[in-house]
């Protein structure tokens, strides 16, 4: 979760809650278009992708549209590495994101907390 640092660097204020709640104006240019394209790609909503690509190309340009998908595809992989290994926050990430985590409620994604939540329901299936 890097957006807060980017806002400080750009001297901009971004609405971090727009990242996790999936709507609202984040303050990032074209964020509605980017969000629609990203979500269609990552959530396998194939029927929405063509329209989302066309919309993004129209307002951002074709190369920017491809670059949105480039970043989204990369993070669709790397988030799974984190999810599959249960890595803790390192000190740098903890320090850089402490306030943001409180704002957006991302602490509920903590791997120990999620393990307790989901493992409490039912037995593991084969």
């Amino acid at each position, binding site marked *: *979760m890097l*957006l807060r640092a*980017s806002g400080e660097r750009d001297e*901009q204020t*971004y609405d*971090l809650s727009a*990242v996790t709640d*999936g709507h609202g104006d984040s303050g*990032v*240019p*074209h*964020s509605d278009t*980017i969000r629609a394209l*990203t*979500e*269609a790609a*990552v959530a396998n909503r194939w029927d929405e*992708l063509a329209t989302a690509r066309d919309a993004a190309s129209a307002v*951002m*340009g074709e*190369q*920017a*549209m*491809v*670059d*949105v*998908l*480039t*970043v*989204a*595809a*990369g*993070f*669709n*992989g*790397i*988030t*799974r*590495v984190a*999810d599959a*290994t*249960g*890595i*803790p926050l*390192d000190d*740098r*990430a903890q320090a850089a994101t402490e306030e943001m985590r409180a704002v957006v409620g*991302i*602490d509920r*994604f903590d791997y120990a907390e*999620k*393990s307790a939540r*989901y493992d*409490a*329901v*039912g*037995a*593991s*299936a*084969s």
Partner: protein
Amino acid sequence: MYDTPYPVRPDLKEKHAAAWRMIASPGPYFTAAERVQIVEEARAALSCDLCRRRRDALSPNAVTGTHDAASDLPPVLVDAIHRIRTDPARLTKSVFEGVVASGITAEQYIEAVSVVCTSVIVDTFHNALGLPVPQTPDPEPGPATGPEAARVVDAGAWVPLTDVEVEDGIFGLPQQPNIARAMGLVPSAVALFFLAFRAHYALRDVPLSISQAQAEFIASRVSAINECFY
């Protein structure tokens, strides 16, 4: 790969092709044929009925059954692959512990994670551009290459992490972030995954036509969708 009118960067095409070739080579704990099967299993997960029912459930562990498998890989490994592909947000430590308890080593698990997540990057990008996913590569013959030397420590993750406190070559940070250490138990797994990933994002020196803030918004949104704590 990437027969498309869209402007896909040449470097990304090259890195994906190289990663595909690397998957089709023997790994330290799996043969090339098994690594290709891991990709096929990850793809099969998208149409697996058990995975669909689990996604719809309050907890995936409340739903039992058998996966629609596409390989003869061990069932517990098939289960892990399907979960990583279709429901990463609800992976838990007990899933990992169940894999290890069944006789799959942590090293094998890491190698499988790397292959799955690399294929997720390649397939997501193809699908996102409206392209069919690439054919799985023809596996090279030969046995697994054997254990690799790894310097790792227990740092609170489910698996041991790379034991380094030096400048990393992945994100350009003075210390390796844990995400770069996560697969350190199997160095070639780190190499495979970041071969593909580095073409997609870095904190600097990645030629994107979108701003850093836009890239970070995308990264953050994907992290939220996949409930990635890190």
